[in-house]
């Protein structure tokens, strides 16, 4: 008798999910023959049979999550005593049933804790108008001591707290989380809650970018911005890897036809992301004009709703602030974002000689629900190639 | 035709009677045909709520109302279609009311049991048994104080004669000598309870004595008898001689309402016997026997009546329901 257990396949793995059984109960298996596939948080593995015999009993069906080390199947080998095998199976089933109960009990306990918490919150006695005033002025009612009957927080208590808050604000320069700041905060929290992000970075040789810029300046007297060139490189990469221009809708991934590139712009009033709509349909001159116009209007707070709507992929450039590498956060509704670092000269060995070259680091954050590491790397490399050969694609 | 009759008052009695009799026959037939159609509409599911038919009792409504002017007041009952038709409510407005339509005489707010048509003096039909009697007393008081020579007539059933309202109303009308005529349509059953089980007197008109007013009992299936006795009461009322109680003994051939087969508490024989006493057939025979109308005339009247009823029902069916945004109209 041999048992197949849920193997630990990864350092952080504490359970695995059954994907598919290749053999059914009662079917013969040979040692080394694949029996079941298991998925961890990262990869899918195929498990092979540890012995020759019969797949006698399966303890976990497809989609079931099993803790590491727990049996998932029993192989009966020739010469095994059926009664022994059956007894073992009963033991496993009993343990499994018990563990389920345990989980259930745990859940109940959690619920109880929650209930207590809720009561704790509700136990704050506060009059309706006091509650409303507190909300309107962003006052934390848990910090107010009620002076009304039974310790109820009254209107007067909240008015007092508002006065105190105002006085403190004067002193400490407390800024309320309002307007664009509040929106940014909400979106970033949403992103953090819902998107499993992975950031990948890669160095790019910026020699060609600088050369192209200089050439445009010299020959056409046009200031080509780095953002224009990066946008161009990204658009071309997206055409090759359209999955980066997609969105998750419920259980589906929808690839979006329009490539609308958002450029994150830091302004005095906060971060805004104007969008270059259908960036793939613009030539380099158009692109440059649009980028410059959008950035300018963003700084003047003159963007329209259309200017900031329907972005599908964002480029965020912190190069001008001296940042090399960072981990951009994906805007909810998108699946990736590209961070751009500063251009810095570095010594490199080229053809046996040490030469100085300008380099720039790209940081790509991708939603792991949609995009696995290898794909992200390929996409990033494509952008790198595009930038290093930017003269060929403009 | 009825108007003609009024203008002819004081002329030769015989002439007067022919027109009156034809009018009465026509009205009774209208009520009968109308209610038969209403029952069909009910069976089709086109009528909300409760519907109480007066099939068999037509002579009371018609015999009484034949004495009334448009400005005389009538309070009807939940069994009020016949009273409404006899008092001159247009058939189409009545049918539309019963079907709950905006074109009904009460804009569909009252329904079958609460027909009112103030233009013709039908103030209200009171579906709470007995409740109408004090209202008629009040109408009589109003007549007296305004010094007009109208009369107020209240219809009610044998069941109502056991309510406090009946006794209070008779007393008030008597002490104030009001021009009120109380018409008891004694159809012998308050739903399923026979009048003998519920009522202390042999004739409900006996109760008039207790209130010191004239009381009469009349064959309620004889329209001529009803007409004559009410004519005297109306004259007394108009002359300021006070109220009268008139009991019209009759019978509803059908059940209490359209949901009552009407046979659990009475025998088929009893029903058949009363069918033979049909007030319409009786007047029809009288008209032929006295050479007032021929079979041909009567058949012509019959088809005219049927056409009018058909038109009215059609009007009601095709009329719109009241608009939802007016549900809160007429509360105050």
């Amino acid at each position, binding site marked *: 008798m041999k048992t197949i257990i849920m193997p630990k396949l990864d350092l952080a793995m504490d359970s695995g999910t059954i994907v598919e059984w290749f053999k059914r109960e009662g079917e013969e298996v040979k040692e080394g023959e694949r029996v079941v596939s298991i998925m961890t948080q990262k990869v899918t593995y195929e498990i092979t049979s540890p012995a020759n015999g019969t797949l006698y009993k399966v303890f976990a069906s497809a989609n079931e999550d099993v803790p590491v080390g727990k049996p998932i199947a029993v192989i009966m080998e020739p010469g095994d005593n059926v009664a022994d095998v059956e007894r073992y199976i009963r033991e496993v089933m009993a343990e499994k049933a018990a563990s389920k109960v345990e989980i259930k009990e745990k859940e109940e306990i959690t619920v109880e804790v929650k209930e207590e918490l809720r009561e704790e919150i509700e136990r704050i006695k506060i*009059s*309706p*108008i*006091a509650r*409303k005033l507190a909300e309107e002025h962003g006052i934390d009612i848990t910090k107010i001591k009620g002076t*009304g*009957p*039974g310790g*109820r927080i*009254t*209107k*007067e208590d909240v008015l007092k707290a508002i006065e105190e808050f105002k006085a403190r604000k004067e002193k400490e320069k407390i800024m309320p989380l309002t307007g664009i700041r509040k929106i940014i905060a909400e979106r970033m929290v949403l992103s953090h809650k819902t998107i499993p992000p992975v950031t990948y970075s890669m160095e790019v040789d910026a020699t060609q970018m600088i050369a192209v810029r200089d050439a445009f300046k010299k020959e056409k007297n046009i200031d080509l911005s780095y953002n224009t060139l990066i946008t161009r490189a990204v658009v071309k990469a997206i055409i090759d890897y359209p999955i980066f221009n997609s969105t998750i809708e419920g259980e589906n991934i929808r690839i979006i036809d329009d490539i609308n590139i958002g450029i994150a712009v830091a302004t005095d009033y906060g971060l805004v992301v104007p969008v270059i709509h259908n960036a793939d349909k613009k030539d380099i001159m158009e692109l440059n004009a649009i980028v410059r116009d959008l950035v300018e209007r963003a700084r003047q707070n003159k963007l329209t709703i259309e200017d900031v709507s329907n972005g599908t992929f964002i480029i965020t450039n912190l190069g001008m602030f001296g940042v090399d590498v960072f981990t951009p956060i994906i805007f909810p509704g998108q699946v990736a974002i590209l961070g751009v670092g500063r251009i810095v000269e570095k010594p490199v060995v080229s053809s046996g000689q040490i030469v100085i070259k300008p380099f720039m680091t790209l940081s790509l954050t991708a939603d792991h629900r949609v995009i696995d590491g290898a794909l992200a790397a390929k996409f990033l490399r494509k952008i790198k190639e595009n930038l290093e050969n930017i003269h060929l694609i403009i | 035709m009825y108007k003609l009759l009024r203008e002819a008052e004081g002329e030769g009695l015989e002439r007067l009677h022919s027109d009156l009799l034809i009018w009465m026959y026509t009205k009774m037939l209208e009520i009968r045909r109308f209610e038969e159609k209403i029952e069909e509409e009910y069976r089709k599911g086109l009528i909300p709520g409760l519907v109480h038919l007066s099939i068999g009792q037509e002579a009371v409504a018609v015999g009484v109302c034949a004495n009334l002017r448009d400005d005389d*007041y009538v*309070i009807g009952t939940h069994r009020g279609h016949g009273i409404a038709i006899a008092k001159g409510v247009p058939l189409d407005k009545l049918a539309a009311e019963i079907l709950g339509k905006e074109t*009904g*005489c*009460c*804009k*569909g*707010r*009252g329904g079958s049991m*609460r027909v*009112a*048509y*103030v233009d013709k003096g039908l*103030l*209200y039909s*009171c579906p*709470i048994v007995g*409740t109408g*009697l*004090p*209202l*008629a*007393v*009040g*109408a*009589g*008081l*109003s*007549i*007296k*104080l*305004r010094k007009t020579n109208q009369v*107020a007539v209240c219809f009610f059933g044998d069941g109502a004669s056991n309510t*406090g*309202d009946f006794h*209070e*109303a008779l*007393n*008030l009308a008597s*002490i*104030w000598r009001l021009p009120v005529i109380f018409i008891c349509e004694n159809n012998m059953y308050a739903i399923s309870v026979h009048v003998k089980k519920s009522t202390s007197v042999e004739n409900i008109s006996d109760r008039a004595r207790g209130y010191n007013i004239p009381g009469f009992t009349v064959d309620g299936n004889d329209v001529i008898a009803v007409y004559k006795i009410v004519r005297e009461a109306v004259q007394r009322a108009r002359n300021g001689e006070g109220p009268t109680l008139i009991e019209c003994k009759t019978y509803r051939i059908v059940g209490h309402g359209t949901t009552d087969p009407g046979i659990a508490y009475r025998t088929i024989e009893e029903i058949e016997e009363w069918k033979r006493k049909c007030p319409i057939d009786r007047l029809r025979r009288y008209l032929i026997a006295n050479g007032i109308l021929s079979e041909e005339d009567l058949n012509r009247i019959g088809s005219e009546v049927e056409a009018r009823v058909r038109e009215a029902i059609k009007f009601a069916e095709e009329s719109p329901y009241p608009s939802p945004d007016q549900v809160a*109209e*007429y*509360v*105050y």
Partner: protein
Amino acid sequence: MYIRGCTMREITYVEALNEALREEMRRDERVIVMGEDVQLGYSGRGGLFLVTADLMREFGPERVRDTPISEEGFVGAAIGAAITGLKPVVEIMYADFLLCCMNQIVNVAAKLRYSTGGQLKVPIVIRTMIGQGRGVGSDHSQVPIAWFMNVPGLKVVAPSTPYDAKGLLKSAIRDESPIIFFESFLLYRTKGFVPTEEYIVPLGEADVKRKGTDLTIVAISTMVPCALSAAKKLKEEFNIDAEVIDPRTLVPLDKKTIINSVMKTNRLIIVESGVKTCGVGAEIASIVAEETFDYLDAPIKRVAAPHIPAPASPALEQLTIPSENDIIRAVREILQG
């Protein structure tokens, strides 16, 4: 009290009502008065409490009509007269006796206009008296105001001062809907200033009897003078500044005045001498909770009679009628705990 251009004199609540009846009967010959003992009463002048005093002398027995003890009958008759051109003012001696004609009031008067699709109007005023406060016992002391508020089609009026009593009775008589007009024995002998000149008080307008900032007291009928004296004490002894509102008309109710006041003071107490359960206060509290919840700074409180029939013994009866102290206690409870 002073109203510009008016000569005022002090008269009782009963005298004010009597003036209203006389003026309206002179003004409109369709107005008649009917009820038990309205012609003579004990005094020979009319009415057990003199509300109809001297009316028969002036208008005669046809228009001022004694009725038998027959509430269902004569209220029904009044309704019948109202729908055929008269404007009857009916007296029901005690509010408890309204139950003897509940059928006519609720099933007929309240419904006629609606059920006839607007063909009929029922211009009838049913005057009645809350008998509470003189030991007349369980079936002569009820305060059934809320019962009638529950009936669509009826208007409900309950004035607390001679000025309001006269002005509202005149408005009620001129109105075309059936109206239940609650008077109160405990108010009958109270005095107040009333203009010599003619005036009316429109239905559906509350009156702020006292301005204040700390809480709103809505008081009904008999409880208005009581609430005012409580407010005075609250100011003097506890420096609590109560606003006192008398709705005067319960249907239609002047929600706006009450709500505006509560939005200002953030606190509400309703005082009525009727039973608390499903009372007038329950309705007003619900309206305020529904429409101004966010302005409340304390629980709404009702001061009302307990769920007990009125006892005859004076020692017990006073326990069933809210007092000045009950109001003060309630106010301090929601303000100071």
